């Protein structure tokens, strides 16, 4: 038993090494980084973090990312809830085909759509707004949310619905007061996944924004251009992008395995 637990331990160590390196670099000055190899920062400096927190173009990047990611999560989960209910409870004309069609949108390479998306949102006059990115990310997040929620709802016995209707509940009241609390873990997991995929996506977010809604990940490309490669700044910005994900994951830690199985275990 002892020997077996070595495997996850080594794996986690392997996962943490690049992250450690990123964090360590963020506390070094650029001179120290370029000056040579050192396992730990020789002189700890917060200069990179100070730049990020005092320069509006940097910290607005974070706020922008958080704004469109939250908007997208709310939209995706809200519209996915009734749809997932329909897929899990009713049979209707073309339901299987529709479900597969939804999934195909997870498969479309974002690179394929970058240019047409730009033209579409430009024509609609919402280019460079939070709404544009939030709507564009619906393309892959809604199918995922429907898929996860359908899995969780499938685990709720149909007798629950039937009893409630016999008891005289109207559908909206049943859905909000009885059904939603039963699948709240599923809702949490779906929201987590929408947050995650919207947070990590960059290609569309970058294509659909210029100044006002520019995500942090796109701001980071600045470090490479101006005064050479500002590795310390890049590392600090990178470290900060890990934090929101680490926070939200803590909330769903008990459901995360089931969530990754899309509720189908």
């Amino acid at each position, binding site marked *: 038993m002892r020997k077996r637990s070595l495997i996850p331990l080594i794996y986690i160590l392997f996962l943490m090494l690049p992250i450690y390196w990123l964090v360590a670099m963020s506390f070094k000055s650029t001179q120290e980084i370029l000056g040579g190899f050192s396992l730990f920062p020789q002189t700890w400096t917060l200069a990179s973090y100070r730049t990020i927190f005092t320069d509006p173009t940097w910290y607005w990047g974070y706020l922008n990312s958080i704004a469109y990611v939250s908007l997208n999560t709310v939209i995706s989960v809200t519209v996915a809830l009734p749809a997932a209910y329909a897929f899990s409870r009713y049979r209707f004309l073309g339901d299987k085909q529709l479900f597969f069609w939804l999934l195909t949108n997870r*498969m479309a390479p974002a690179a394929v759509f970058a240019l047409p998306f730009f033209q579409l949102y430009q024509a609609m006059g919402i280019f460079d707004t939070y709404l544009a990115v939030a709507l564009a990310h619906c393309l892959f997040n809604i199918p995922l949310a429907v898929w996860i929620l359908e899995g969780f709802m499938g685990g709720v016995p149909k007798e629950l619905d039937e009893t409630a209707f016999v008891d005289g509940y109207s559908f909206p009241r049943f859905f909000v007061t009885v059904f939603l609390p039963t699948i709240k873990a599923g809702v949490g997991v779906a929201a987590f996944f929408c947050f995650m995929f919207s947070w990590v996506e960059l290609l569309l977010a970058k294509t659909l924004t210029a100044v006002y809604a520019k995500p942090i990940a796109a701001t980071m490309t600045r470090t490479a251009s101006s005064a050479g490669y500002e590795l310390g700044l890049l590392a600090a910005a990178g470290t900060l992008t890990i934090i929101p994900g680490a926070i939200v994951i803590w909330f769903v830690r008990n459901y995360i395995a089931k969530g990754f199985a899309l509720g189908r275990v």
Partner: protein
Amino acid sequence: MRKVNHRGWFFVLPVLILVAFNALVPMMTVVNYSVQETFGDNVFFWQGLDWFQQILRSDRFHAALGRQFLFTGMILAIEVPLGVIIALAMPRQGFWVPVCLVTMALPMLIPWNVVGAMWNIFTLPDIGLLGYFLNHTLGINYDMTQDPVAAWATIIVMDVWHWTSLVVLLCYAGLVSIPDAYYQAAKIDGASNWSVFRYIQLPKMKQVLTIAVLLRFMDSFNIYTEPFVLTGGGPGNSTTLLSIDLVKIALGQFDLGPAAAMSLIYFAITLLVSWLFYTLMTRNDIR
């Protein structure tokens, strides 16, 4: 059995509208480009299926497609068995479970270009942790900006680092759903570790493994940001995967017609393979 109720359509309508808006309009634009030629100024000429023929016959497309299949094949061959092994060795209960799950999921929550940048810093030959270790401690001559083999090894290891946890978490979810009674029965029968794996654990993991393979196939086939940030498709064209090549044609050279045709062929391949997996998956769906 589910009730037949066409009211279901009202429930899916908002989803339908939002996704169709995002999927169909850009798709029609791509189809439109793929059959026309332009010399600028928004003047377009009917081109028929010439672009498709040109792409399907071009060596450049074949090469990129070959690299793409090689990449996807390699990461699947590494991540799936590795994920199963790690999931089997994970603790089933206690304090360490949430710790393992959270730390393992962490790489998946990092923005993709940060993943690329992080591995770039990590593998710099003289000042990166891995680069320094390989070059100066082990004495291997490693520089992924010069050597195609090193570049390939780096993007594969990066993807293994990034996504193996997905397979682990899926398999783990399957494993914890096995009732203890199964293991007790196996013990009474004197089953070996291998038979427990083969006849109890593997069947239970079959469905989640199909999901894992499906997700990993779709995502690795569409991968763009991480290798682009890490290697930029180089050295030469050695790590130019399909998406990278597509963006080069579409935005670099602004050849919209060929790029659109290539997009559609690309999408069709992804769709076909994913449909095969999906059919396999739903066939095993008991519900």
